[in-house]
Structure formats: structure tokens, C-alpha cells
């Protein structure tokens, strides 16, 4: 509930059109289910049957199901069934390497999405071990109360929460931040003006997960996934991909040769917009990164073990009021703030110095 209350304090910065929550490193009833993939989504009564049939046919065995205790709220239209279900892998896949398992999980999620997208009978947001995603349209605080998050025992070490659904595209559940793909998750503040060329580039990579794009911000997550998982670059090169340096600046980097080539080859993924991106990677590293002109706000504050990465300082004040405020970090245009897993260490990586 804490992040949502923080979100509430930043109300002036979002339009309250929806709430998206991605929880990672789960506690509570999921604490002992960490190795099992959790499917998060929403379905109708018909959709539930479709989903059950599909998962059964695919060989997934249901281990545990969590459903929010819905408290009806004015302004939030309740759907039939909200769920987070932990499954056991199909027997044939139990011993596959993690990469292959990730592909299986993603393809299953995409298949469910396709199955239920047309009549909105199934929404599948994430299917990955130790991750839960909740999304609904409406005022974030009301949606949180609607989900009963103020009463539930559900907890997580990493919580990504976003209160705006979409800037320029239709309000739709799949357009709601945060976006998730194979352990990578991000949410964004700002408009992505380079959306169409980026979408076309990602769609052409031949990777089935690069689809959807109901929101211009979804590409940020996919670029992250492409950079780190597909290309195998260390996380900080995400900054070089989305906001490439000038030629003269690259010349000063110790890895100039590689960065120069990357800039050319990944030219289509330059974001170019007023954006701030917050996200996490499968190992639990969280980060915040700005567009090349820092046209959007962003602040990181906290203490060892607990850090908040937020759009506005008032949100951090609400979440971690006891921190030493002088140590707050306001990343500038060349910076990438990287919080190590378990919030043990915060590092500011400067793009100019590499």
C-alpha cells in the first residue's frame, strides 16, 4: 500500500486514469513459491474456463491461487475474476534451462492474451516466477482499495506502481504501465515521440514478445529486454541505446569503439522524448534513467535496504520520510541510477565517463 500512498501524494503529476502494479520478490503467501511461475491477469467467467483448459492442455499444474479481496468502489467497474496463480512447470519442461523456461512462459502468456483479447475474456499481464502484476482502470488509490491492498497480506520487496494509463493512446488495460517481459519491467513518465519507428524496429526483430504496443511506453521495456537479454549488454548500456551520445562525447569514452558501433546499429531505438524510465531486471536490480535532455523529473532517495525511485520528491517523502534528504539523488541527463538487488547499494553511472 505504501507505494500507492506515495503515488497519491504525486497526484498532480498523473491523471489518475488507472493503476498498474508489478510486485517482485514476493513475500506473504508467495514467499515459499519463488521457483514457480506466477500468472497474473484478469478474466471473465468464460475466460476462466478457457484459461483453465489452455493451461491444463499445456501441462501447467496449478499450485496456488491468490485473488484480491475486492471491496466495491464507486468509479471502479469490477471484472469477474482477478488472479495471481502460481503454476508448476509441465513435467516435460521442468529441467529446461531458465532461458527456455522464460520463452515457454512468455509464449504461454502471449497465447492466453491472443485467446482472450478479442472479447476481453482474458487479460494476461505477466507469467514469471516471483512476479505479480495488477492493473485496473480508475483512480489509483480507489483501485488499490478496490483490490483490498490496504488489508491484504500480500507483500513484495520491489514494487513498481504507476498511476497514469496512457497519454496519447486509448485507455486500455494492456496500455497500463508497468510493462513486463521475461523478468524485465519498466514504467515511464512522459511521451515517447519516437514510438512508431521504435515499434517498427522491435517488431522486426523476430521476437514473439515484441508485440502489443497499446502504449507508446511499452517499447521502453522491450528495448531494455532487447539490450540486456537478447544482446547481452550490461544494464548501463541501456542508457547508451536510448539516449546515444554525440560523436565527440563518444570519442572520450573508454569503450568508444563499441559505443560508436552500438549507436549506429541501434539508431532506431533512440527514444528522443521527454521521458524518465524506472524499471527492474530479473536479478532485482532497479534503475532510473532520464531522456537526453532531462525533460522529466525523477528522484531516488532512501537508505540501505530501502530505496524509492519516484517522479517527484513528495512521493519519496511520503514513502521514506525518515531518510537523509541531503543524500537524495536527482539524476541528470547523463546519469543512470542503479540500485543493486535488495537495495544494498546505489550507484550513479555517468554516461560521459562510461
Amino acid at each position, binding site marked *: 500500500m505504501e507505494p500507492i500512498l506515495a503515488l497519491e501524494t504525486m497526484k498532480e503529476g498523473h491523471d489518475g486514469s488507472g493503476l498498474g502494479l508489478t510486485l517482485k520478490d514476493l513475500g506473504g503467501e508467495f514467499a515459499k513459491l519463488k521457483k514457480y511461475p506466477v500468472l497474473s491477469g484478469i478474466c471473465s467467467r468464460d475466460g476462466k474456463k478457457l484459461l483453465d483448459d489452455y493451461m491444463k492442455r499445456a501441462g501447467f499444474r496449478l499450485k496456488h491461487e491468490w485473488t484480491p479481496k475486492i471491496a466495491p468502489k464507486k468509479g471502479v467497474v469490477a471484472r469477474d475474476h482477478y488472479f495471481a496463480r502460481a503454476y508448476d512447470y509441465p513435467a516435460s519442461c521442468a529441467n529446461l534451462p531458465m532461458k527456455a523456461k522464460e520463452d515457454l512462459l512468455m509464449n504461454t502468456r502471449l497465447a492466453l492474451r491472443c485467446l482472450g483479447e478479442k472479447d476481453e475474456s482474458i487479460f494476461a499481464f505477466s507469467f514469471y516466477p516471483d512476479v505479480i502484476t495488477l492493473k485496473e482502470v480508475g483512480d489509483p488509490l480507489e483501485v488499490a482499495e478496490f483490490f483490498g491492498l490496504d488489508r491484504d497480506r500480500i507483500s513484495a520487496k520491489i514494487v513498481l506502481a504507476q498511476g497514469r494509463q496512457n*497519454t*496519447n493512446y486509448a485507455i486500455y488495460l494492456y496500455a497500463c504501465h508497468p510493462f513486463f517481459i521475461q523478468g524485465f519491467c519498466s514504467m515511464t513518465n*512522459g*511521451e515517447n*515521440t*519516437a*514510438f*512508431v*519507428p521504435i515499434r*517498427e*524496429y522491435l*517488431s*522486426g*526483430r*523476430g521476437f514473439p514478445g515484441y508485440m502489443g504496443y497499446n502504449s507508446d511506453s511499452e517499447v521502453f521495456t522491450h528495448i531494455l529486454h532487447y539490450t540486456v537479454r*537478447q*544482446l547481452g*549488454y*550490461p544494464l548501463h*548500456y541501456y542508457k547508451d541505446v536510448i*539516449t*546515444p551520445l*554525440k*560523436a565527440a562525447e563518444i570519442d572520450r569514452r*573508454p*569503450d568508444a*569503439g*563499441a*559505443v560508436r*558501433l*552500438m549507436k*549506429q*546499429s*541501434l*539508431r*532506431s531505438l*533512440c527514444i*528522443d*522524448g*521527454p521521458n524518465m524510465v524506472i524499471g527492474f531486471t530479473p536479478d532485482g536490480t532497479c534503475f532510473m534513467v532520464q531522456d*537526453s*535532455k532531462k*525533460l522529466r523529473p525523477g528522484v531516488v532517495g532512501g537508505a540501505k535496504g530501502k530505496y524509492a525511485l519516484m517522479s517527484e520528491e513528495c512521493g519519496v517523502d511520503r514513502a521514506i520520510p525518515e531518510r537523509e534528504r541531503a543524500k537524495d539523488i536527482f539524476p541528470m541527463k547523463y546519469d543512470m541510477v542503479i540500485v543493486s538487488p535488495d537495495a544494498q547499494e546505489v550507484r550513479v553511472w555517468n554516461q560521459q565517463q*562510461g
Partner: protein
Amino acid sequence: MEPAAGVRLDNNHKLSLREFPYIVRWRDDRCKRCGRCTAVCPVKAIEATVKVQRTVTSSGAVPTPTAVRTVTQVVEQVTDMERYCVGCGSCTLVCPNEAIEPEFNPQNKLLHYKNKGGDAYKRGGRRNDPALSTLDRLKFTRISMLTDPALDAGRHEFRVRSLLGRVLPPEELPLVMENGRLAVDKSSGKFIPPVREIFPIMIGSMSIGALSPPMWEGLAMGVAYLNEVENIPVVMCSGEGGMSPRLLRSKYLKYFIIQIASGYFGWDEIVRAIPHMVEDPAAIEIKYGQGAKPGDGGLLMAQKVLKLIAKIRGVPQFVDLASPPTHQTKYSIEEAVAKMIQSMSMAWGFRVPVYPKISGTKTAKAVLNNLARNPYAAGLCIDGEDGGTGAAYNVSMDKMGHPIASNLRECYLDLVKQGKQNELPLIAAGGIGKKGNLAANAAALIMLGASAVAIGKYIMQTAADCFGDEYNRCNLCNTGKCPRGITTQDPKLYRRLDSDKVAERVVEVFKSADVELRKIFAPMGRSTEIPIGMSDGLSIDDKAIAERLGISYAC
């Protein structure tokens, strides 16, 4: 009945002035008979002649009409189609009293008659179609408004740059991890194609020979200044016909794209200079076609092949220099294109991007797909039907070719389908700046998928005041009688042109285009990279075009 012969009082054997594309309006009352207009007319369409006038006067209280015959000097337009007024307006420029001016005659029948002796009409210039092109109808409609702040074209940092050269897909980059950082794996032996960072508007191929020495020199000086002083990396293509031996050996060569076309003119000199080059050229362009005259080779008329041109091109003087329509030694796209690209790459040790130029055509995609599979192909230049030329048959110019907008767009979308849109840059040409909207046309093509655009006619018009337009004005480039001194090798004519002034204008044109591009990109929220393929930013008020280009319809 026998036709009338001898003196024909009915003048039925003559054409009336209404048949001519331009009718010269001459004002008797203003003319002081200085003769400058008749002297300057490049086609001798007007001549000084005499007329007998009968004037009846009367004086006194009672009418006493008296007829007086006087001989008057007049300026008269000839009615010989071989000397038709081209409407250049040189006469108006030299007239001290504003007594003469050609006027366009939309009902003209030039094409009915301009084939005397079975010689089909040849001219220079561009397609005679003054209609608004698709490029000029495209609007930029996706403006960053209240949802997000727009950029400030005047204050924010902008990088209006593009890439020329084959770009490796990220999956193929030879990168390895070293101490937590990526590094280029030199031991991999992977070929990394050369790539140049350029300004997205380049000067297209116009040869020494087609252009006069001061014109070419002016362009070249302007380009060098833009690079060296203004930090705007504009590149310029030589056209077919070689380059000055000194330029080939100078440090400025890096700003020039050398063209090789089917006549290979000038390449003796270029090959001889290779061992002495201190810089690599920006690129090599292999010309397979030209938008203004698809299916036709280059053509430099004999009257333009004077001593300098003959020397640079390695040919005798005063002979027509016709490059064949195709490269004669090649027979198939797979073999022809690949071999030429390979050969040219090899000549410069694979350090120079080599790309072909074709005329806009429905078959462009076939060429593109061939290039997409060739790892040495550095791009593709597509020259649309509105491109210009120094000499061609009128029918080729007016009726042959493909508009650039949809041709470029379908090629780009084809690359998108293959995921190769960033690997093979597309250069669009033909009709950019037709109505003067250089930056807007360039930006529109970029948003349809071009990595860069090339201009020719526009820079001749803006930098050297070329008279030519889409009403067949002037278009004398093929005759060597360019009244502005742009496309002539006659020193008496080209001394009218000051190469320094041309260079100055080139710099002004590109500096203002740079500003205008920012003014377009800023409200659309683009500043770090040019918006290649950002088709959601474009709209047009025609549903069919919108559908064809895959953009939105706005009205």
C-alpha cells in the same frame, strides 16, 4: 488545286504566336532600341527588324488627313519553332526600360511542332508539371502539445545528422565484454562496413561538364565551408564526369561522393589519383538510373565538350558524350550490382561506402532486396520522376519515371518487414524543393523512411538563380547556352557567374535548411535522432494517398 506558292499574303505557312510557349510582350513606347535584348537572347527568339508604318495626321480647323509612311525599328518575336522563346527572361533582365517580357502561353503547341527533321525534342530541366507534388501536400500533424512539452528549436541541442553506409545489425556487431565494458573484438575478423555521419540533405549528382566550372566550383567551395567552418557535414556527389585532379588529391575529397556511371567518364583520372589521395571520398555512387530520364544514360552534348571537360573526361573535344542506359559489361542484377559494389569497395580497401542509384520504378523493391542481401551494399538512392537533368528527351523527362513518395515508402516498409530498415539507408531524390520547401520536403521524406535526401535543381535555382521551372522555362541546359552561366562551358556565358557568390548561397541555403529542419522536428519532439520512418507525424488531405503511404488522413 495547286497550293499557293511564292509570296503568301495569307501567311498560312507560318505558325501563329499562339502556338509558342512564351509570347514576348514588347512595348514600343518604352523601348529605346538599345538592342540589348536581342543580343542577350540565348535562342535568338527575338530580333530587331523594321516595319513600315502608315500614320494619318490632320491639323488645322478643317480635317485634312495626310498619310505619312515611316520606317520604324521594332523588336519582333520570330515564329520559327527552332527559335522559340524559352521564357528565360534574359531580355527583361538587360532591358533598361522594362520594355520587354516573355509571357507564358498555356495554350501553346510546342510539342506538336518541336520535332523538325524527325529530331525528337531534347532539353534540360525537369518534368514540366507545375502541379503540387505529394511531398508538398504532406503536413506535419503530430505536434507535442499539452501532454508533453515541445522542444525549443532555438535553445535545445539538436543533432540533425544521418548515416551513409551499411550498418550492421546489433546481433552481428563483433563486441566482447572486457572488465564490465563492451569492446570491439578485433580478433573476430568481422567486416565492419564504413559509415559516414552526414547532414541529411546532400547535393545530388551533377557533373563537371553538365555544370560550368564556376558553378561546380561554387558548390564544392560551399560544401567545404559548411563542413570546415559551420560544422554541417554536407556531402556532394560528383556526377558522372570525374573531378578536378587537384580536388581528388586534396583533403576536401572526404566531402565528395564520386559517381561512376555507365560511360565511366573521368575514371581514368580518378584511378590515376587513387594512390595520391590523402583522404577517402565520402562514398562511391554507382549510377544505374536517373529519375529525370529513366532508361536513358547520361548525355553531354558536343557543344559542351570543350577543352577542360575533354581533359577531365579523357575524350576528344566536341563530340556527344552519351553514356549507355545500362552498364554494358553486366547482365544481371545479382552479378552486375554485386560485382560493381565489390570492385569499387576494393579500390578503396573497403573503407568507402558504395551504393547504387536508380531511377524511381516499380521494380525498386527487387533492387532493394538484392542489396539487402549484399553485405557490401551501403545504401540505395532512389531518384524520383521530378528529378532534373542537363539533357534528355522531353518524353523521358515528362512521361517516364515514378514519383518518389510512394516508391521510397514501399521500399522502406519492405525493409521494415525484414527488420533491416536501419541497415540499408535509403536516399531519396527527385523533386525535393520543387516549390521551394526544401526542409519540409526533406523532413517528409525522412519521416516516410529516407535516411537522407539529395537535391539538384533546387540548389541551382537558389544558389545560382537558375531560371528553370515546371512551365518549361529556359531549360536550355543541354544547349550549352545557359543564360545564367550554370550549365555552359562557354566562358562568355559562365563568366556571368561568380563562384564565390554561389558558395555563399550554398552555405546560406544549408544553414537555413538546418534551422527549418529543427523547426519541424522540435514540435514533433525529435532532437537527438532524425525521425526516420516516423510516419505517425505525417498526414495528407487525400485518403487514397494516405492509404498508399500508410499515414493518416487529415482535413
